[in-house]
């Protein structure tokens, strides 16, 4: 078997606690891989350590044990190879939408001329349909628009991989739907590799090729990795008419409601190789 594009091995994170020399790790023994061009979502209850994993992948936080290997090299510290869309959009309020994106482009290409930087930033803002609002400050943008600027900023550096931390968490259902569609369009066009955290089962089904299911913390583990049997690109309108939709959805909801809390691994469960599960599509699994 060849090495996946991104490989996470034996990851563990302990946060120091007063009076405890060996506090419970948030998660331990986390192993999984992401192939180039794959869209992977992580589902798990609040506090299981999803953001912590994403921060470690981004290089913003350090694991207590284990390591992350991307494209053959170990991840040590943040890098322009991994674009991050923060949960709270993290735009700089003193810069306009355009200047926020230009800041990222300039970081990526310090040698570019002013016009080149601007043209590149505008291109990505237009990609998220914000061509009309490039000179607005974040305070003058709606929540969804801010989130889209954050997405444009992350995409504009053309990273090898995107890390999204609940990027649509704060949005209403309508805005969320339209930005999801935009994201699908961009990812299809750029063949981006994406790692995304979400709380929303339907969002995971729509976007992800693989859904990583985490048990509750502390000592969270990866219970299994669910393979989305429905082919890309998936369309929100027709998704639920496909025969695999409800079996998949029920499987995920069932995990979140019941199994995530009292996860009892079988004898053959191996943390180094979390089982791949193909709900609703046994035939495809066999193929």
């Amino acid at each position, binding site marked *: 078997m060849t090495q996946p594009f991104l490989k996470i091995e034996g990851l563990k994170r302990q946060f120091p606690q007063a009076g405890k020399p060996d506090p419970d790790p948030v998660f331990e023994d986390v192993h999984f891989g992401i192939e180039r061009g794959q869209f992977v979502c992580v589902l798990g209850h609040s506090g299981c350590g999803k953001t912590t994993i994403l921060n470690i992948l981004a290089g*913003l936080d350090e694991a207590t044990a284990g390591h992350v290997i991307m494209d053959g090299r170990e991840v040590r510290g943040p890098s322009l190879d991994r674009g991050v869309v923060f949960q709270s959009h*993290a735009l*700089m309020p003193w810069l306009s939408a355009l200047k926020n994106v230009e800041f990222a482009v300039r970081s990526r290409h310090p040698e570019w001329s002013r016009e080149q930087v601007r043209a590149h930033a505008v291109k990505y803002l237009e990609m998220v349909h914000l061509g009309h609002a490039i000179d607005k400050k974040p305070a003058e943008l709606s929540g969804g628009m801010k989130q889209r600027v954050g997405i444009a900023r992350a995409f504009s550096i053309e990273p090898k991989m995107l890390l999204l931390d609940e990027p649509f968490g704060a949005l209403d259902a309508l805005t969320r739907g339209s930005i999801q569609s935009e994201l699908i369009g961009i990812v299809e066009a750029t063949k981006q590799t994406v790692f995304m955290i979400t709380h929303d089962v339907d969002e995971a089904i729509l976007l992800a090729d693989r859904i990583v299911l985490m048990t509750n913390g502390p000592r969270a583990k990866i219970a299994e990795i669910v393979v989305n049997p429905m082919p890309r690109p998936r369309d929100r309108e027709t998704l639920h008419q496909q025969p695999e939709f409800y079996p998949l959805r029920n499987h995920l909801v069932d995990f979140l409601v019941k199994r995530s809390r009292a996860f009892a691994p079988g004898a053959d469960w191996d943390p180094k190789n979390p089982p791949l599960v193909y709900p609703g599509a046994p035939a495809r699994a066999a193929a």
Partner: protein
Amino acid sequence: MTRNKPWLAPLLSALFFALFVGVWYLATSTTAAPVAGPAVDPEYAALLGAQAATGGQSAMPGPGEVAAKIWEHVLDPFYDRGTNDKGLGIQIGYSIARVLGGYLLAALVAIPLGFLIGMSPLVYKALDPFIQILKPISPLAWMPLALYTIKDSGISAIFVIFICSLWPMLVNTAFGVASVRREWLNVARTLEVKPIRRAFLVILPAAAPTILTGMRISIGIAWLVIVAAEMLVGGTGIGYFVWNEWNNLSITNIITAILLIGLVGMLLDHLLAWVARAISWRE
């Protein structure tokens, strides 16, 4: 209410002003009456100076006299008739120059140092005891030491302004820099932004409103202190002018100077408020 009557507040202000001038006029014109009777004791008159020697007049001038004096100064603000008789424009010019000199020097020291303190918890902890002790010292307490070591009264005044402007800028800069949002720093880290670029393009704009608050407090304090400092060191400046006019017992000149001090203080404050508005950001 005030929304559809924007003239109401200015009208009220004008009314208060008229009331104040009216009371002032009445107060000064009635005290003038009894004094007008018997001749003033010549010894007392000699003590009080020229004004009282004229006899019939109250030492406290009325609004008319002050207005005339102001007009006189407005017509000729920059005359220079020797060390003790310079125009108000020249005197206030000296004061402004000293304040700006000391203040800008303080900014030059406080902002970079505040940056350092705000970015490094270690430096913060190391310097905190010194700041704690030095901050509450009245700037004028430094004056004798400054005069002794610097041996130049003008520079000593600038030093006192420097010292009093330093602390608010230092403390605010350190606080502003230390409380830059983690998420903006994380954005800079994921973009591999170099330290200098991060300092100027992320931390400085993020902390700028807090820094400006410190700068605004500092200019206010500096302007308060300069008057007292110039009374001490003498020579030139609006503070010296006030003190000198007190010796001449020219109350009209003192009142004129007081008004001018208030006016310039307000302008300085407005200037910084304007800068603060220009660099502030809204989330």
